[in-house]
């Protein structure tokens, strides 16, 4: 069946949609987990420790996300190249009627997000960007994620990077969500306009949720 | 020569069945040895090519359009008749037959028309099976509506796009045969001549419209499904590319051209707006089911329609024809509109228009109901005129639309040239002097799906497949002649464009050989057309090259044939010294201005034989005998 999906235009889109949906799911879960920072060190440090204690299960989840990302990126690049080949000559004048900035820049927003994820992993997972504040232990002997995060987001340039990345996420998910709904065939006359509006709204909620963390930290509203 | 229509003997109801039974069959294993050439991919051509492919024949099908899905059948809006009697309103095969014969003013061959009515039901079934989305009622049954010239509701429809949906059904059936390799399709390829070998049609010469190259195609027989010739009037509801060339080339090779004067003027078209007008747009006459036609009662009334009180409006069709009213047949409705305008009661800037008013229906049924029935037509009207047909009456005027005349064929749809079959609008067979609404689709599909596949075998069984190849001299001669014609047109390099000449021809035809013809007007046309033709050959300007995509050259080649054909049309109209159906001679009308037939003198088909350049064509007759209907004065009062 996989081979069948690969060679079919709709099949490839379905792979994009399924992996995209999976990653949106991850982004939602990740955000909910992140909100634990508002509970102070007792929130996020406990959450982090719990995650770590999952052991092999955590690695299964990580590998799953990695696989989804790998498929999403590979197919995204492949389909984009194929689509460009299908439109070799540009119009002298072109007027956009329905497509959006987000829909036409998916490949760029996707690649920017990839870059950001690499940075984010180096920053908070491998902890090599600010090693001095990233490898502390809290009073209960847990990894002090709270200090790592709050110390980072008191640095203005770091916040800018995260804000920019979330802007990119907004455009990517803003088109991506409604696109995947269409691809998995959920649309009809009623749902088309509904998801058309819900998709950027979802992206906005996600992005606002995410940026609330660095912003509140930057303005000193998150205290340990 | 008295022509023999080869109508089978026996009672009317059994002729077709007996004939199919008596027809010769070809062994399935031998069918693939035959190659059949089909020209045209409208309803008739596509359905024939698909059905012949399904039978196992090899088919080469040609069309000038860039896709076989674009033939002008696609523009038919209203519907397709079938004697299903689903409504229990008294319909029957005999009634459809009778309506069609009567509608055609008793100038069609009884047996053909009866067969058409018999096959009408099968067409609906076939199209349903193909997935044509006919309108359905809430219980899921096929819906029907009434249509001009009939008192029963027998017209099946798919919104206002019935022709499109039926054509796509045939196109899809054809596509399946193309996929299976039984049919080869040649798009952007126009037939420029017919090739006869020992008097039998065995191939065609075509021009590749992209490269400009001429090539020959040989087959075991040739089927022309090339439509009508309304574009002889320049402005008509036909597509710009519709032309008479294939049929006229066959005529010049000896095929008889029957009843060219039977042309139909459609009553509900959008009026022309200026000299640049390139074509006229028809709105389905199903609009007449709910619209009321009127003109101001007084001359030169320039008030907007809303300010003309009901008492000062002349609902002339309802007044003159109380039984049928606004549903009077097309020719009657068209002529009545022209009369109103000729009296100075026309509306719109040009004074060539009458009103089609939906106010009363909207009041009675609600705007939503009207919108559901005719929404796309109102949209079309607004796009073209910039006016809203719901709030102000539409303006309409008649326009050339369909041609009942065509190449003469016998009961087998074979012309007098063996191996040349002619189907659909291109032949003359079923509509007599006037076609009823929703009958063109019926005839095209009956010919293509059911008649031709059952009659072509008798001819083919008597031939040996593949006997003629395209290396023969006849093909080389045909190519050379076509090449000369192209070269001659390009070498003139005169002052006037092809369109200039076509407009002039159209003007002559519309004014003198149009809705109302007289001996005087026809003689005038017969004097003017040859003059225009010689001027064309002296001073037309065709730019570009032969071996190129050259649209002006395409038009010039078609117009060259129209310029000869127009004369034949006028000649036939002059000869037919009576009025019947779409052919109205002002000398022959009743006191009320109705068409007056002369059955004693003209109850025959006039089939014209080409006798050579500059020579008068010779007329042959096929007498029309009516054993099953009583000849009556057609009355729609």
């Amino acid at each position: 069946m996989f081979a069948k999906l690969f060679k079919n235009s709709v099949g490839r889109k379905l792979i994009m949609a399924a992996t995209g949906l999976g990653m949106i799911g991850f982004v939602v879960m990740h955000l909910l987990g992140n909100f634990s920072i508002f509970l102070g060190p007792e929130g996020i440090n406990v959450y982090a420790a719990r995650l770590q204690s999952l052991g092999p299960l955590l690695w299964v989840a990580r590998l799953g996300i990695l696989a989804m990302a790998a498929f999403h990126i590979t197919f995204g690049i492949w389909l984009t190249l194929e689509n460009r080949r299908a439109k070799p000559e540009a119009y002298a004048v072109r007027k956009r009627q329905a497509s959006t900035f987000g829909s036409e820049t998916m490949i760029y927003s996707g690649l920017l997000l990839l870059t950001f994820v690499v940075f984010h992993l180096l920053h908070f997972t491998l902890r090599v960007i600010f090693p001095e504040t990233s490898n502390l232990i809290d009073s209960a002997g847990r990894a002090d994620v709270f200090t790592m995060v709050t110390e980072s987001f008191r640095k203005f340039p770091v916040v800018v990077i995260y804000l920019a990345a979330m802007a990119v996420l907004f455009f990517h998910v803003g088109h991506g969500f409604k696109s995947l709904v269409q691809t998995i065939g959920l649309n009809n006359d009623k749902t088309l306009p509904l998801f058309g509006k819900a998709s950027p709204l979802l992206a906005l909620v996600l992005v606002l949720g995410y940026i609330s963390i660095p912003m509140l930290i930057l303005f000193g509203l998150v205290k340990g | 020569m008295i022509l023999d229509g080869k109508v089978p003997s026996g009672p009317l109801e059994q002729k077709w069945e007996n004939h199919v039974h008596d027809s010769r069959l070809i062994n399935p294993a031998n069918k693939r040895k035959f190659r059949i050439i089909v020209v045209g991919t409208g309803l008739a051509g596509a359905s024939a090519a698909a059905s012949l492919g399904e039978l196992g024949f090899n088919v080469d099908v040609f069309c000038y359009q860039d896709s076989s899905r674009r033939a002008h059948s696609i523009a038919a809006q209203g519907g397709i008749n079938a004697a299903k009697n689903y409504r229990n309103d008294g319909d029957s095969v005999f009634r459809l037959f009778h309506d069609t014969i009567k509608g055609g003013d008793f100038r069609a061959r009884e047996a053909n028309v009866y067969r058409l009515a018999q096959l009408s039901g099968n067409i609906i079934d076939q199209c349903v099976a193909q997935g044509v989305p006919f309108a359905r009622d809430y219980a899921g049954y096929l819906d029907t509506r009434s249509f001009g010239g009939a008192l029963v509701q027998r017209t099946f429809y798919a919104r206002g796009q019935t022709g499109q949906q039926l054509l796509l059904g045939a196109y899809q059936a054809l596509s399946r045969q193309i996929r299976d390799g039984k049919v080869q399709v040649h798009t952007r390829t126009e037939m420029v001549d017919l090739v006869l070998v020992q008097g039998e049609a065995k191939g065609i010469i075509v021009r590749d419209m992209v490269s400009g190259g001429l090539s020959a195609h040989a087959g075991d027989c040739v089927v022309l499904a090339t439509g009508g010739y309304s574009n002889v009037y320049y402005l008509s509801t036909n597509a710009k590319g519709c032309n008479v060339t294939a049929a006229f080339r066959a005529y010049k090779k000896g095929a008889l051209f029957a009843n060219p004067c039977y042309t139909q003027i459609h009553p509900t078209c959008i009026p022309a707006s200026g000299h640049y007008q390139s074509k006229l747009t028809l709105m389905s006459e199903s609009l007449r089911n709910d619209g009321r036609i009127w003109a101001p009662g007084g001359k030169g009334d320039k008030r907007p329609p809303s300010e003309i009180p009901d008492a000062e409006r002349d609902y002339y069709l309802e007044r003159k024809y109380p039984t049928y009213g606004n549903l009077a047949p097309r020719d009657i409705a068209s002529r009545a509109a022209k009369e109103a305008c000729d009296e100075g009661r026309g509306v719109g800037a040009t004074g060539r228009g009458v009103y089609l008013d939906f106010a009363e229906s909207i009041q009675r049924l609600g705007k939503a109901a009207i919108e559901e029935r005719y929404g796309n037509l109102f949209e079309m009207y607004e796009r073209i005129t910039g006016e809203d047909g719901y709030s102000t009456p539409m303006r309409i005027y008649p326009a050339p639309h369909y041609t009942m005349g065509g190449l003469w064929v016998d009961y087998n749809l074979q012309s007098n040239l063996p191996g040349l079959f002619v189907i659909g609008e291109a032949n003359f067979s079923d509509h007599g002097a006037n076609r009823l609404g929703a009958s063109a689709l019926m005839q095209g599909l009956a010919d293509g799906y059911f008649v031709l596949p059952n009659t072509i075998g008798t001819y083919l069984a008597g031939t040996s497949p593949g006997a003629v190849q395209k290396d023969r001299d006849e093909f080389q001669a045909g190519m050379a002649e076509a090449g000369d014609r192209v070269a001659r047109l390009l070498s003139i390099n005169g002052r006037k464009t092809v369109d200039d000449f076509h407009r002039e021809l159209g003007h002559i035809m519309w004014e003198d050989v149009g809705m109302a013809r007289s001996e005087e007007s026809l003689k005038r046309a017969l004097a003017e057309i040859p003059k225009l033709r010689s001027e064309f050959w002296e001073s037309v300007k065709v730019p570009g090259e032969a071996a190129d995509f050259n649209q002006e050259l395409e038009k010039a080649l078609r117009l060259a044939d129209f310029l000869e054909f127009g004369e034949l049309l006028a000649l036939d109209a002059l000869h037919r010294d009576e009025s019947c159906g779409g052919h109205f001679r002002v000398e022959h009308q009743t006191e009320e201005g109705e068409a007056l037939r002369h059955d004693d003198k003209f109850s025959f088909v006039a089939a014209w034989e080409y006798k050579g350049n500059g020579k008068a064509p010779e007329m042959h007759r096929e007498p029309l005998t009516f054993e099953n209907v009583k000849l009556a004065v057609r009355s729609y009062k």
Partner: protein
Amino acid sequence: MNLTLFVWRQKNAKEKGRMERYEAHDVDPDMSFLEMLDVVNQDLIHNGKEPIAFDHDCREGICGTCSLTVNGIPHGEQKRTTVCQLHMRHFKDGDSIYIEPFRARAFPVVKDLVVDRQALDTVIQSGGYVSVSTGEAQDGNTLLIPRHDAEYSMDAAECIGCGACVAACPNGSAMLFVGAKVASLAQLPQGKVEAAQRVCVMTETMLDQGFGNCSNHYECEAACPKGISVKFIAKLNREYLKSLKE
């Protein structure tokens, strides 16, 4: 009114094309867009120049032959209107109008504004039909079709095959064209039998013919002169998902 036209001229498929400038004088607002081009062409011929080649036939918006991109939009800006039905009253005196062919790899230019759209026929040939031969049909009323299904099918079947969806799509995808055919047939009992095979083969042929993939920009729907909804693409996607079960 007077207009300035910038028109794509290209001698044939092999040579390179370019935009050329023309002046259109005394344009009547009641003219159709193609009639305006007719008049320009008549002038060109009278001046010994080669007229602009463009495709057209029925000029009443149903045959799907006309294929001009006007100011960056296939068939021009007016919604649900083919360019042959676009009238000059929608332009203003002094306007500049850019006229280009429908562009996509699957639609190579034949000459000037004329393109080759045979790829669309090839997609239909691969499976866009019900495999019924003449004579096999039963009575039309033995198959009851709910009115809603017939209407839904008809909505999709209105496609005129002009290819504006492909021309408008940034990816040169024919998904709306394919979706309309797949949806129209799959909604009817006659078309359900072959639905699974049809959706697979048609979408695969679409790629083989050089069309791109759909990424849901919905430019197709906006440009479609018949207003075919992208909901039919969703229906195609559903049909494809169903086909995976078989």
